[in-house]
């Protein structure tokens, strides 16, 4: 098990390096001179050269890259924002928590709704509930998150006034954005759960469990779910990427002060150091979650060994 994790992490490193190179190149491939952006366009050529030397911009690219990575790894320093002239890391730390809370809450919705719909659809196969569930899920997969968010906002915040329209704060601020973000993944989880549970329901051991005199729903909740959930957990974990991407959109809709809205603001203002840091951070988060999913798959399934 331990060696499996070590090997998976080792396999991830080249990928991380490539991803970091790509994000590093963001500042260097895009228009805009960092010195002039940071220190103003009015500085004298001599001062300009001096600053350029001081910032290390005259060094070869690979030296700059090395310094960039070293700063990130040793100090967690992602550089200075062009727009606010402040440290990017501080802003990221401030906002990271919001994005994590939002994605985790969405995952919670997705799992709760998705599992419930999937299990009901599978156990009541070919009934009206099953059909309704499947039509609803494919519709949910066709709804743009931002529109769904606006509609929820209109209904629950504007018309009914039950929940705040946007912003952050208490738990009530979290409900609409997380529901919006969780919808698509809930639909994927529901469809996948349904097919997985259907597969398991056909298994002989379900019949064995019934022959033992076990009650139907107990069989579904123990024998069936325990087997059916193994692929579902894996697949659900892999949807984390969709949540991270979706968070960018949903945060914009609900003015949620997370990393996603920070990214969009930075793109619109061409604040490349921030873009660079966020792109790297998002993909690292994603890769780490994928690793965790792989490991949890092994913990859940007794038939898997890591040799």
């Amino acid at each position: 098990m331990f060696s499996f994790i070590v090997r998976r992490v080792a396999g991830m490193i080249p990928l991380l390096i490539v991803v970091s190179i790509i994000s590093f190149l963001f500042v260097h491939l895009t228009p805009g001179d960092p010195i002039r952006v940071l220190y103003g366009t009015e500085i004298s050529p001599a001062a300009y050269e001096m600053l350029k030397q001081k910032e290390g911009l005259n060094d070869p690219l690979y030296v700059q890259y090395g310094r960039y990575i070293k700063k990130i790894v040793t100090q967690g320093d992602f550089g200075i924002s062009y727009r606010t002239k402040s440290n990017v890391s501080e802003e990221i730390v401030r906002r990271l928590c919001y994005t994590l809370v939002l994605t985790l809450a969405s995952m919670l919705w997705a799992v709760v709704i998705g599992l419930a719909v999937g299990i009901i659809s599978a156990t009541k196969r070919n009934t009206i509930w099953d059909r309704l569930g499947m039509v609803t899920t494919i519709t949910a997969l066709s709804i743009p998150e931002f529109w769904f968010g606006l509609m929820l906002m209109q209904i629950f915040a504007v018309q009914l006034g039950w929940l705040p329209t946007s912003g952050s704060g208490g738990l009530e601020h979290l409900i609409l954005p997380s529901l919006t973000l969780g919808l698509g993944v809930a639909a994927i989880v529901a469809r996948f759960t349904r097919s997985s549970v259907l597969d398991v329901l056909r298994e002989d051991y379900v019949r064995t469990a019934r022959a033992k005199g076990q009650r139907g729903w107990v069989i579904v909740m123990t024998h069936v779910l325990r087997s059916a959930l193994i692929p579902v957990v894996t697949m659900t974990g892999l949807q984390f990427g969709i949540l991270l991407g979706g968070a960018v959109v949903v945060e914009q809709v609900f003015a949620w002060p997370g990393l996603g809205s920070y990214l969009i603001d930075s793109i619109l203002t061409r604040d490349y150091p921030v873009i660079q840091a966020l792109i790297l951070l998002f993909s690292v988060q994603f890769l780490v979650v994928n690793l965790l999913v792989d490991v949890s798959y092994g913990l859940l399934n007794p038939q898997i060994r890591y040799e």
Partner: protein
Amino acid sequence: MNQQKSPSPFRVFLQKFLRQRFAVISLGLILCIIAVALLAPWLAPYDPYRPVTDQYAAKGIEAGRLTSASVKVEAVMSDGTIKRAKELGHLTLDSADRQIASARKAGENVIVNANGDGSTAILLSAGEAASRFKVIVSGEDNGQAYVSQLIADVQQHSLELGAEQTAKVKAVLTDGTELAGMNEIAAYVEKNAAMPAIKPAANDGFGNTRVTDDSHGLTFTSLEPDVVQVGSDGAIKAVGAGETAVKVSLDGVSTLIPLAVNQPLSKPIVTRLVPEELAIDLINRYKHQPPSGMHLFGTDHQNRDIFSRVLVGTRETLLIGFVSVSIGAAIGTFLGLLAGYYGRWLDALIMRCTDVLLAFPGILLAIAVIALLGPGIVNIIFAVAVFTVPIFIRIVRGSTLSVKQMTYVEAAKSIGVKDRVILMRHIFPGTLSIVMVYLTMRIGTAILIGASLSFLGLGGDITAPEWGAMLSAAKDNSRNLFHPTFFPGLAIVVTVLSFNLLGDGLRDALDPKLKD
């Protein structure tokens, strides 16, 4: 001879496909959507780029009709007869907020004009009698009910000297509620006094000079205190011979109770005014018109016809979907074929690149591309294409690997057919069915991603009639307005749903084993 003809694979596919009701319906829908995209400039009732108000004249639509309404006003006389407004010489009209609506007299009716969004009230007064009705413009009801009319009566209008009686008062609010009796009215007044938000509107005047805090409460005034005296609780006492009236007023609205002491009432006077309606709805034609027969989906913040914009936007939206997926699928299929067929270092190289692309979760890959290239519609297409490539590489590579094992491919190889020919003639057709299925499904996704990017403001031109951009432009007003966001979003849902259902149907018809 037993010549049993097996049906061609295509017919088998067609039969299976036609059995999927949803998929067939969605195919029909998609064809309709494509037709709309092609014919949009002719189908659109208005020019999607210009405010509709500029276009009314050309279309022969009388714009004024939309924004004004006429209200019939009647006066109830003391002898119970009804008089028309034009018979009242001195009807005055006063709007609480001229920015929202104004009124003027025209013949026997009152014409109300909308000037801006919101709701306000218009006070009608003739002599000492006054009534009010509410005007709501563009559906922006502030939810407030104003006092519309007062109805007061006494048991006897002709009194003996020294007789006493109490007036009965009823108030009608603009939302139709009736407040009967002093107690209910007092409760209403108290409640409204406790709501400071209402005060400015009331203090704004209604052209009434006697606006003080007291005037919010119900007041009784005798026009000639020598003849009758009246208390604040409506108790009337006849103190001298003559003819007069008691004026009852509440919040600017007033009515008269004619009274005569020791003599009959001589001529009828106007006791109260009755507008035909308590509240009227108007639309503001200068922006955000709600959906109506003229504008099926309403108009947006620049007063452009949303229905026309949705129709015309179909083209751009489909273009993003089709072009980006075609490019992505073409590149992805090509690389997937190469990786699957040649294997070894080429496979390793292509797959590692795919891994890198897939390391950027979901829509973030597309966002990163936009961040690099800058906003714009062409860049969106390119970004969505990049987003599509790795998925096709993976699928086609897997499919190629399995087709490669087929005997007919090995046979072709053994007789010395060139690799290029084997790839094009033997392997590519084998992967075609799965490519078709994913192509269809990815178009739906691509439209979603494209719309999301536009929504985020990464589409460059926010004024373009593209569904995502329309939503982006409308989102700032989404709190108050429903229709500018609802309809473009619905168009996206219908289109994407059609592609998804069609993809599902294709998949089931081509190979049921592919399910999930």
